[in-house]
C-alpha cells in the first residue's frame, strides 16, 4: 500500500483503528478539537464522553484490565492533561497498558505560558512508562504505533502522547504499524533455561513450599492463569495471591490460602513466614505484602519470576531470579518439572498442609455477628453468595475498608474479573473503572463495591453511566466514616477521629434517581438479601446503599512495622497498643 497523505488528526484516528482500538474515553477541549472533528466524521471508533478526565483514565484502566487490551484516553491540553495524572500514575503502579493522547498548544506557543498550556511531558514523566511530545507530523505515525507497542510490551504501563494543535492540522505521510520496529525497547520474555533447571531443583526439594503470585500473571494473559493453576495442582503446593493477583488461581479451590499481606489471611501470611522455598510469580514484594522487611520469611529460598529486572532484589533478597514473561516461564517450568519426573517430598508436604490446616482453623476472617446492624463483611458475603452462580461477574472497588473486605470475602475464579487500585490506592477508582468494564462487556454484571467516601470522589461519572445506559451496580457500604482512616486513628492515635467523619452525606437513593437510575437503601440485616436481589434484577444502573456498622474494623491485620507472624485479630485488639512507635511513622 502506498503511503497516503493525511492530516495529523486523521493519522490519530487511522492509527487507533490500525492498533485495534474500538473505544476511546475522553473529554474535548480547544487543543484537541481537530481530533474530535475526525471522530465526528467516522463510525468505527467509539468515543465515550466522561464527566472529568480522571474518570476517563480509570475507565480506560477498567476496560484494559477486563479485556487485556490497551486502554485509550483522549484529553485536552492543560487541565485536561493534569486531571489525567492521578489515573496515569495509578496505571503505572498497577502495570496497566494505556495510551493517553493529550492535546497541546501549537508548537510556536510552547513555553509561552499560553492559555491551557501545561508542560505535560514534564509533569507525566515520572507517572508514565514513557511519553512523547510530537514536534512534527512526520514523527506522528511512528510515535503513535510505538506508544501502543511500549504500553503493552514487557511490563505494561501508561504512555502519554502530547499532540500540539498545529501538528494535528499539518499534513504528512501515514505509515501503517507493520513497518515500525522499536530500536531500543525489547524486553526479555523467554526465560534462561539454566534458571528454570535450578528452580525445578529448588522446588523439588522443598519441604514447606509456597507459591505467591500477583498481577503479573493476569497481565501475561488468561493462559498464564491456566498454567499457574496446572503447575500448582501438579505440585500440590499451597498458593496465595496478592490483591492484584486475585482471580489468577480459582478462589474457591482448596490449595488457595486466600490473599496475603496486611489484610491477608492468617494462613497465607504464616505460610509465607514459615516456608522453606517461596516461588514468587509476577509479584513485587510490595510493602503491603512483606510487613517488616528484616522479619520477612526469614528461612526461605526465594525464586522470583518477573518480566521487569528492576523488581528483582528491590526490597527482598532473591536467591534465584527468573526474568521473563510469566506465561513463557510457567510453560518452561511445567515442561522441566515433567521432564525431571520430580517426586515431591510427600511426607513433608503432608505435614506442611497439616500445619496450614491448624492456621486455617483459626478462622481469621470471622467477625462478630449482629442481627440488628448489617456487618460490612456480611454484606460482601451475601453479595458473593447471590452472584457466584452467574458467569461474567466483574467487580471493581474504591479504596479503603470495603476494598479489603471485598478482597477477603469475594472469591474470584478467573482472571480479569477483579479491578482494584492496588499500588496507588486511588479513592474514586471504582465507579469509572466499572464504567469501562461495562463498556467492554455490555451484557455482564458489573459491580462497584464502594464506600460512601470514595464513591463521592468521582460521583460525576454517574452522568456518563446514565448517558450510555450502562447498568453498573454500585454497592455502597455506608459507615459514614472514611473507614480505613478511622481504623488507623483508632489503632494509632487514641481514637481521635480527626476529620474522618463525613457529615452531610447525600441521599444516595435520590442521587441515583437524579441521574435516571434506581436507588435502594437497606439498614436491616433481614432485608439485605432482598435488596441485593432487587439490585441484581434491575436492568438499569443502581446505587444500593447498605448502612453498615459504623465502627467495624478490618481484620486480620499486620500492624505497621510488624512481621507476618504478628497479625492481630478482631477479638483481641487492645487499641493504642497494636502499633509500636516505630510503626507509627509508616503508612
Amino acid at each position, binding site marked *: 500500500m502506498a503511503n497516503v497523505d493525511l492530516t495529523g488528526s486523521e493519522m490519530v484516528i487511522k492509527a487507533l483503528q490500525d492498533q485495534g482500538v474500538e473505544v476511546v474515553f475522553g473529554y474535548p477541549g480547544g487543543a484537541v478539537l481537530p481530533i474530535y472533528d475526525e471522530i465526528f466524521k467516522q463510525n468505527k471508533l467509539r468515543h465515550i464522553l466522561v464527566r472529568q478526565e480522571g474518570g476517563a483514565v480509570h475507565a480506560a484502566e477498567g476496560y484494559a484490565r477486563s479485556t487485556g487490551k490497551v486502554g485509550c484516553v483522549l484529553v485536552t491540553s492543560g487541565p485536561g492533561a493534569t486531571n489525567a495524572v492521578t489515573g496515569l500514575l495509578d496505571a503505572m503502579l498497577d502495570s496497566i497498558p494505556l495510551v493517553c493522547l493529550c492535546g497541546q498548544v501549537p508548537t510556536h506557543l510552547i513555553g509561552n505560558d499560553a492559555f491551557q498550556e501545561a508542560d505535560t*511531558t*514534564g509533569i507525566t*514523566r*515520572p507517572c508514565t*512508562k*514513557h*511519553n512523547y*511530545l510530537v*514536534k512534527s507530523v512526520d514523527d506522528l505515525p511512528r510515535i503513535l504505533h510505538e506508544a501502543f507497542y*511500549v504500553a503493552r510490551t514487557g511490563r505494561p504501563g501508561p504512555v502519554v502522547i502530547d499532540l500540539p494543535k498545529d501538528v494535528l492540522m499539518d499534513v504528512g505521510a501515514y505509515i501503517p504499524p507493520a513497518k515500525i520496529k522499536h*530500536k*531500543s*525497547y525489547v524486553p526479555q520474555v523467554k526465560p534462561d533455561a539454566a534458571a528454570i533447571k535450578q528452580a525445578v531443583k529448588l522446588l523439588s526439594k522443598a519441604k514447606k513450599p509456597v507459591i505467591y503470585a500477583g498481577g503479573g500473571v493476569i497481565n501475561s494473559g488468561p493462559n498464564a492463569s491456566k498454567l499457574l493453576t496446572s503447575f500448582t495442582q501438579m505440585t500440590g503446593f499451597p498458593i496465595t495471591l496478592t490483591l492484584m493477583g486475585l482471580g489468577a488461581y480459582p478462589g474457591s479451590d482448596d490449595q488457595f490460602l486466600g490473599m496475603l499481606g496486611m489484610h491477608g489471611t492468617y494462613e497465607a501470611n504464616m505460610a509465607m513466614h514459615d516456608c522453606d522455598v517461596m516461588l514468587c510469580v509476577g509479584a513485587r514484594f510490595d*510493602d503491603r505484602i512483606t510487613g*517488616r*522487611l*528484616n522479619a520477612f520469611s526469614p528461612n526461605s529460598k526465594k525464586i522470583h519470576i518477573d518480566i*521487569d*529486572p*528492576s523488581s*528483582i*532484589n*528491590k*526490597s527482598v*533478597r532473591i536467591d534465584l531470579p527468573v526474568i521473563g514473561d510469566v506465561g513463557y516461564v510457567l510453560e518452561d517450568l511445567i515442561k522441566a518439572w515433567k521432564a525431571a519426573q520430580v517426586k515431591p517430598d510427600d511426607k513433608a508436604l503432608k505435614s506442611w498442609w497439616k500445619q496450614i490446616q491448624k492456621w486455617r482453623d483459626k478462622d481469621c476472617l470471622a467477625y462478630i455477628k449482629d442481627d440488628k446492624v448489617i456487618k460490612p463483611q456480611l454484606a460482601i458475603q451475601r453479595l458473593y453468595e447471590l452472584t457466584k452462580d452467574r458467569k461474567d461477574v466483574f467487580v471493581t472497588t474504591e479504596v479503603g475498608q470495603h476494598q479489603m473486605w471485598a478482597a477477603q470475602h469475594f472469591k474470584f475464579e478467573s482472571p480479569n474479573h477483579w479491578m482494584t487500585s492496588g499500588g496507588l490506592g486511588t479513592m474514586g477508582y471504582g465507579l469509572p473503572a466499572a464504567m469501562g468494564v461495562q463498556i467492554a462487556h455490555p451484557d455482564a454484571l458489573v459491580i462497584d463495591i464502594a464506600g460512601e467516601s470514595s464513591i463521592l470522589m468521582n460521583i460525576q461519572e454517574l452522568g456518563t453511566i446514565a448517558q450510555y445506559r450502562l447498568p453498573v451496580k454500585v454497592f455502597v457500604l455506608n459507615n459514614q466514616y472514611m473507614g480505613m482512616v478511622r481504623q488507623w486513628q483508632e489503632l494509632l492515635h487514641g481514637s481521635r477521629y480527626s476529620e474522618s467523619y463525613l457529615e452531610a452525606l447525600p441521599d444516595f437513593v435520590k442521587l441515583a434517581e437524579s441521574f435516571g437510575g434506581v436507588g435502594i437503601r437497606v439498614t436491616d440485616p433481614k432485608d439485605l438479601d432482598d435488596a441485593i436481589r432487587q439490585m441484581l434484577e434491575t436492568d438499569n444502573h443502581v446505587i444500593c446503599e447498605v448502612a453498615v456498622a459504623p465502627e467495624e474494623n478490618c481484620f486480620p491485620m499486620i500492624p505497621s*512495622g510488624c512481621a507476618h507472624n504478628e497479625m492481630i485479630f478482631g477479638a483481641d485488639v487492645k487499641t493504642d497498643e497494636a502499633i509500636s512507635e*516505630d510503626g507509627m*511513622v*509508616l503508612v
Partner: protein
Amino acid sequence: MSTGIYGANIHSEEIRTHTIAVLVDNEPGVLARVIGLFSGRGYNIESLTVAETRHRQGLSRITIVTSGTAMIIEQIKAQLNRLVPVHSVSDLTIEGPSVERELALVKVAGTGEKRVEALRIADIFRARVVDSTNESFVFEIVGKTEKLEAFVDLMRPLGLIDISRTGVVAIARGPESMEGQD
C-alpha cells in the same frame, strides 16, 4: 544508604562508587528522564556527563558516577535499563578494567612569586596554559579525578578563583564496544 521501606538498614554492606555508562537515544527529555530517575528514587549523582557520540544513529553517551551498596547499584542499573530510550547500560567499575578522565579549567589570579609558583606546579601536573593576562592564568588539566583534586588543592593558596569541571568520562579498556557495530 541502603534503607528498607521500614526504615531498618537491611544490608550493612559497604558503599562503593561506581562509574556507569549509558547509551541513549539523543531525543528531547532523555536527560531529564535519567536525572529524574535518580532524584525520584533517592540515588546519588556524584557526576554526570553527556554528549552525542554517534551522530548518524542519534545516540548519546551518558557517564554517571554514583555510589551505593551492591543492591542499590543493581537497582540503579535495572531502573536505567527500564527507560525506553536506553540502549545499553555498562557498569565500568565491575565489568573489567576501564579508563576514566576528567577535564578542568582552573583560573588562578595573582602576581609575583605566587604566579611563578602556579606556573611551576602546572608544569609538574602537565596542565596547559590556555589563557593568560598579566594577573591571571587559565589552566587546562586532564586526568583522573584524584589528580584534578590534588592540583586544585595546590592552586588554592596561589590565587585560585574559578573552576569548571567536565565530570568523569570513562570507557572500558580492550577491543570490545558497548555500542555495537555501525
